[in-house]
């Protein structure tokens, strides 16, 4: 295809992506370097019959003028990145010098909003991803050994947790795990303590969120692995049998190596997706126990005060995190491309 034709074919989608994806990323980076202007204050003296009082009022006109002249706000450099709501270097170093033990240091740092969110986001990402891969793999093996006729039926129900809107899926689970829900009551019964409640316990909430994460994403892993199982080379499997390999050995040395590229693929995709964990925190009403980077951005944006700069800064930090997780995917795509060329 000629460059010219390509250009016209590609223009609409390129424009859409430039204006609504590339430009906002740029705008977020710029916003994160500025803070809104403070109101211009003027001191006036009111003199009455009982003497003079000084009062400070906002000069509305001058404030509006200043905001008009520099709509971005005051340049703050990396100031917002270093403040208490984000990387908080000052607080971290203070915690380092004042705390007696490592444990105390971590608990001090854990109180800072950014590190609190980071702790949950990373735990969630690195616990959920391997477990969902394992579960997906086992489901795929089990479904593959089923009778052909009921496979479709099983696949239908298996897809549901993934297809259903994350917020709706998390609500469905939350209402059951809630202390008044059916599973919640069951847990209370098993644990023998009627006070056990999701709302009151941080570890329980973390576990519930991770169970949701695995439940939601395992079907994706299952579908990918199931498709991969259909292409396992039958000759290799047969020769393994002739050589006396047990069923376990066949799975371990023939099936698993065949699926390795798919495992990498699912792992890379899911690491990125789990890093953005957001909806379950809303659905489980979990923000008192667990926050994520995405949740902080949402919270800053939806509050009354509309803290755009703070949200933009967290956005940039999130993008950096995604970029780190994305780099192996890019390297892999680059190798594929080189391999084909």
């Amino acid at each position, binding site marked *: *295809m000629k460059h010219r034709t390509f250009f016209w074919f590609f223009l609409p989608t390129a424009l859409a992506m430039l204006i*609504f994806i590339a430009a906002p990323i740029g705008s*977020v980076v710029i916003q994160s370097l500025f803070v809104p202007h403070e109101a211009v204050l003027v001191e006036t003296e009111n003199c009455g019959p009982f003497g003079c009082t000084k009062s400070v009022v906002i000069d509305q006109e001058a404030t509006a003028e200043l905001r008009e002249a520099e709509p971005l706000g005051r340049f703050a450099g990396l100031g917002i990145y270093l403040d208490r709501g984000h990387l908080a270097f000052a607080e971290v170093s203070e915690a380092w010098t004042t705390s007696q033990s490592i444990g105390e240091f971590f608990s001090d740092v854990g109180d800072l909003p950014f590190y609190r969110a980071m702790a949950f986001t990373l735990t969630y990402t690195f616990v959920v991803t391997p477990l969902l891969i394992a579960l997906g793999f086992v489901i795929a093996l089990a479904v593959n050994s089923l009778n052909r006729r009921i496979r479709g039926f099983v696949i239908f129900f298996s897809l549901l947790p993934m*297809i259903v809107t994350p917020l709706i899926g998390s609500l469905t689970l939350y209402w059951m795990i809630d202390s008044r829900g059916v599973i919640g009551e069951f847990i209370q019964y098993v644990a023998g303590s009627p006070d056990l409640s999701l709302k009151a316990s941080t570890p329980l909430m973390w576990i519930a969120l991770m169970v949701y994460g695995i439940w939601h994403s395992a079907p994706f892993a299952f579908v990918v692995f199931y498709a991969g199982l259909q292409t396992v080379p039958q000759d290799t499997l047969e020769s393994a049998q002739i050589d006396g390999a047990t069923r376990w050995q066949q799975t371990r040395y023939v099936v698993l190596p065949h699926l390795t590229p798919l495992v990498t693929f699912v792992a890379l995709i899911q690491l990125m997706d789990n890093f953005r964990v957001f909806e379950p925190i809303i659905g489980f009403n979990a923000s008192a126990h667990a926050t994520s980077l995405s949740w902080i951005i949402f919270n800053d944006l939806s509050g009354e005060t509309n803290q755009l700069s703070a949200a933009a800064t967290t956005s940039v930090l999130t993008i950096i995190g995604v970029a780190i997780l994305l780099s192996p995917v890019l390297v892999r*795509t680059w190798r594929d491309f080189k391999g084909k060329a």
Partner: protein
Amino acid sequence: MSSSARQAPVSLKVASTLFIVFWLVLAAFPFFWTLWGSFKVELDFFSIADWTNAITGKLTEETHGSTFTGAGYYGAWVQEEFWRAALNTGIVCVFVVVTSLTIGTLGGYALSRSNYNYVFWLLIAALIFRAMPQITLVSGYLPPFFAWNLWGYLPTAIIVLVAINQPFTLWMLHSFFKKIPIDLDESAKVDGCTQFQAFRYVIIPVMWPGVITTGLFSFLLAYNDFAVTTMLLNEQNRTMVPKIAAFLGTTYTEGNVMFAVAAVVSATAPLFLLVMLFQRQIVSGLTAGAVKG
């Protein structure tokens, strides 16, 4: 599967069947439980006294005279005007799918028929864009949308969703078009067609399976979106998912939770139908990117 060596031992068969049953319960039970419970009163669905009330509907019978009640649905759809949200979701989904497929098809076709190096870099850029969390983009949209008075309207959210959807659409359609032999359009061009005519008369008639699969995923993205629609739409124009979130925000007074439960069931129903009708396409779409790589 005929050879006797391949026959699984009984113990393994039993274990695997049990596991499948366990997984099916895990995957499907929450939905059926919520569906059943949505026809009860709150004190039955969230039963403190006795969990079997949720099944028998004891208190529902006391309140409404029957073990099933549509009160939650009436409250959500009529009283809280959930129908408006459903309508908005319908509008958003239709326009997102149509627009995103139109420009995505042109772009994906171009990518599949060009062999220059920039194709690779465009695909890489799309991959990077796909990885961006949507909520981070939203904080970039808000200042200009407020300034130009674009905030709150359906078309704004539609365009944003189309754009966010493009990277995935491009990747998927690119790989589908790669499977359509290039000889088809080459021979049309030999016969004197322009590239666009070749696309119009030769490619469009054969591209529908891939386009339908891609369209399904565009639909799901628009239907399931929470971050964009909740931040960019005003109260009047809210779609279903932000509306449900708003139900939760209002206090958990009696009855109100059941509105949310009824709304959740209503919003899940179309997805059930979708998976039932298009299961094959969804599976093939999910595996398209993976199995080759």
